[in-house]
């Protein structure tokens, strides 16, 4: 009897690069957490960095001002780590063909949403899910479901890519 879907259909690129890449993302988070007890998410960087250039009190709360320099270091290290990967694997210089308005408009909504929702794919998705935190599980389930519907509606409307 033929299976309804094959492994190759579900995972056309296999699973190893995803599984190992994810494990390294978790390892970087784990190392920082075990040394500092800080669950480092990627998106607090926006507010903490805005405190360098904005007088708005909201961006200048102690938790942002006190963490802004290491969050810049964390972000630049993520850029550098990905660059090391790309140079080591001959993947450097790839550019997306997703339209500019999708990147800009989608990025804008991501920026609003992560700040209203208290976290992003790394804060809620890796640290929060790893903590089995109910708030994060609800947030991740919400953004996953909405993102799936959004991407499929855009595809159905013929926006590619």
């Amino acid at each position: 009897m033929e299976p309804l879907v094959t492994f190759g259909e579900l995972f056309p690129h296999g699973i190893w690069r995803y599984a190992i890449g994810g494990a390294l993302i978790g390892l970087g988070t784990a190392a920082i957490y075990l040394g500092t007890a800080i669950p480092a998410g990627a998106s607090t960087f926006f507010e903490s960095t805005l405190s360098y250039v904005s007088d708005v009190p909201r961006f200048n709360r102690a938790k942002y001002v006190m963490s802004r320099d290491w969050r810049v270091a964390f972000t630049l290290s993520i850029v550098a780590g990905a660059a090391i990967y790309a140079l080591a694997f001959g993947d450097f210089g790839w550019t997306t063909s997703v339209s500019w308005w999708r990147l800009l408009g989608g990025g804008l909504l991501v920026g609003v949403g992560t700040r209203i929702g208290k976290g992003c794919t790394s804060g809620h998705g890796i640290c929060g899910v790893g903590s089995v935190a109910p708030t994060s599980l609800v947030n991740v389930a919400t953004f996953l479901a909405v993102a799936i519907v959004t991407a499929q509606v855009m595809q159905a409307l013929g926006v590619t890519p």
Partner: protein
Amino acid sequence: MSGTEGQDRHPLFLPLVVAGGLVFGFGLGLSHMARPEVVLNFLQFEDFGLLFVLGTGSVVAGTAFAIGVNFLDKAPLTGRPYARRLKSFDRNVLTGGVIFGVGWGVSGICPGAAYASLGIGNYPILLAIGGMFLGAYAQGLWRTYRSEDNATAAANAD
């Protein structure tokens, strides 16, 4: 947040953040999450591999959280007690999740993956990073004005 600021800071604090960020970014590159196309393929049910990124990432991080919370006392570099990442639940968690979901579904990119995308040389991602800064700035301004309105309303109330 003692031990995370200025002269109080342990000399290994920044080196550890940098080392962790390098591994984190390398993983984002290897997982191909730094490519919006790969995220969109996942959301369009054409490649479910991204489930393994979230899965192994949260299991590895979760193991560290469990070890810290259950077996360790205070973090060596900050003196902070180990705690789970718990945020209070309110309507904003849902509203933010919906807005984030629309943005992620439109662009195929999230903050950490966007930094990594820049690292692999994908310079158009600067549009997304700029958008994220604008969005975070707009949200902060809106929250500020709204709380000032509330404060004025409260001051005017009997």
